[in-house]
């Protein structure tokens, strides 16, 4: 219980730090929202008036306080560019991104674990070379390149799947899946590669340990040794890595979603950045960082729960 309390306090402090960094970085951005809103009708006087109305002239710490206070009380403000309330917007886009992140994770794990095990078991033979080779190739190409190739083959070439857009799962689950497939596969490609390598290396590590030798000595079948004993122990680190990769994934979605015009958090953040839409950008960056941090925390706890050797310090 004490451990939990301590972690929660630490959590709150970290979230505070994240908010500070978010605010600092986004407010150093040159160019401003007023110009974006007024577009080619901008002129110095009108802009000054608009900035005043938008509260952009107040000292930074006042703006920060206003922002934090608002977030804590549930008022996340309105996107200056699109005049839509931010909280429901983010809720919607996060669901969208959540869909492809979840899909890519499942896909990646489903492919990586068998491939990694296969490589480990057949270490240094052609199977290993193939498996590891594929994995290496997977992490060597930029993920948006995979995206481009996928669009070429599956959308334009075969016409099986749409190359862009987003459909809400609540409204039309089938369409939602179809639109999410290609982005998820593109996202998952390099993730799968990472996880394959991770699976292979942890399997190798585990299989070299004493208790495996004991299992073999006891006469257990090789299949049982691999799957029931080795894999069980290797899974935890792999899952941990998968969870930790979430941070990297949330960066990748910016590129992938822009490529596929898939309107999720990545797309939204990039739009906010381009438009200098400060309230939206701050909220997006904060949310992404918070999600990554919370996931890491959850993974830590999960790892501790799964592996009795780790002490909850």
């Amino acid at each position: 219980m004490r451990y939990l309390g301590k972690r929660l306090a630490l959590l709150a402090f970290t979230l505070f730090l994240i908010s500070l960094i978010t605010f600092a970085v986004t407010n150093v951005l040159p160019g401003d929202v007023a110009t974006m809103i007024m577009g080619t009708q901008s002129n110095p006087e009108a802009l000054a008036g608009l900035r005043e109305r938008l509260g952009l002239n107040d000292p930074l710490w006042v703006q920060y306080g206003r922002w934090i206070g608002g977030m804590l009380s549930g008022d996340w403000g309105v996107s200056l560019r699109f005049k839509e309330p931010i909280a429901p917007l983010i809720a919607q886009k996060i669901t969208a991104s959540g869909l492809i992140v979840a899909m890519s994770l499942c896909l990646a794990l489903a492919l990586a674990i068998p491939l990694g095990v296969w490589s480990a078991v057949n270490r240094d033979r052609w199977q290993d070379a193939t498996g590891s080779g594929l994995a290496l190739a997977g992490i060597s190409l930029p993920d948006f390149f995979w995206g481009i190739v996928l669009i070429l083959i599956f959308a334009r070439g075969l016409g099986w799947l749409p190359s862009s857009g987003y459909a809400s799962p609540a409204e039309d689950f089938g369409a939602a899946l179809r639109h999410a497939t290609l982005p998820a596969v593109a996202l998952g490609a390099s993730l799968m590669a990472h996880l394959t390598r991770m699976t292979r290396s942890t399997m190798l590590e585990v299989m070299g340990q004493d208790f495996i030798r004991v299992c073999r000595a006891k006469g257990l079948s090789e299949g049982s040794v691999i799957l029931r004993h080795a894999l069980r122990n290797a899974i935890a680190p792999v899952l941990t890595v998968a969870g930790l990769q979430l941070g990297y994934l949330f960066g990748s979605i910016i590129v992938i979603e822009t490529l596929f015009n898939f309107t999720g958090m990545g797309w939204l953040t990039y739009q906010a950045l381009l438009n200098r839409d400060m309230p939206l950008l701050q909220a997006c960056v904060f949310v992404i960082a918070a999600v990554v941090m919370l996931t890491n925390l959850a993974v830590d706890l999960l790892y501790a729960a799964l592996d009795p050797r780790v002490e909850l310090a």
Partner: protein
Amino acid sequence: MGAFLTPKGLLGLLLVGFFVGMAVLAPLLIDEGLTTKIDVLARHQPPSLEHPMGTDQLGREIVWRVLLGASTSLLIAVSAVALSILIGLPLGVISGYFGGWTDSALMRLVDTFLSFPVLLLALTISAVLGPSLPNTILAIGIAFAPYLARIVRGEALRVAALPYIEAARSQGARHGRIIRRHVLPNIMAPVIVQATISVAFAILAEAGLSFLGLGTQPPTPSWGLMIQASRDYLDVAPWTALAPGLAVALTVLGLNMLGDALRDAMDPTVAAER
């Protein structure tokens, strides 16, 4: 050393050597003008004897751009990683060596930065500074620094716990001396491995940044920019994407292989298995 020269290590070394060679020699041997020479009448020519890798949408020869692109990409990647080491190494060493409150505080800060996806950080920094080649280096370098700091810290912790280090400290030797003479040399190997792999990621990061318009500027022949420009013409001119894409893939592949081989060579458990 022998453990390093596995097939993987050799292939990695070969690939990396080839690309580094290209990066160094190309600017000396190829006239820069060839990469920007526009010939609208010869746009989107497929690969042939006349145009070894084909031409792009403005009629520029892709082969020269890919070759010189090696310099751009490697320059950015290596500089960015060097910068990240410059920032991350001291942080990590101080954190790991001194431990205690220093470690907790510094790592709290680093972990917070690590919550921001690397690409997002790099994007924002690039937007803040204004996109250009030097600023791309800064953006990627700063964004990679926390990650490197963490790794260095892990290594420094491990080394600081070694008996003879503890002995030296208890004997009152000055911290600076211990760090310089004992800690740093012992962590250099893993740092080099990490750096190798980071260079690979930096190349990918630059490609991503350029893809989003916040990396290198035209008409600089950078692989990332070339892939981005090829996007609209994929079905009519796929070679415009394939050439730079393969270049990135092979370079990154080589770097990953090299990094893997180095790591395997230094990892005692792996070595013991042979």
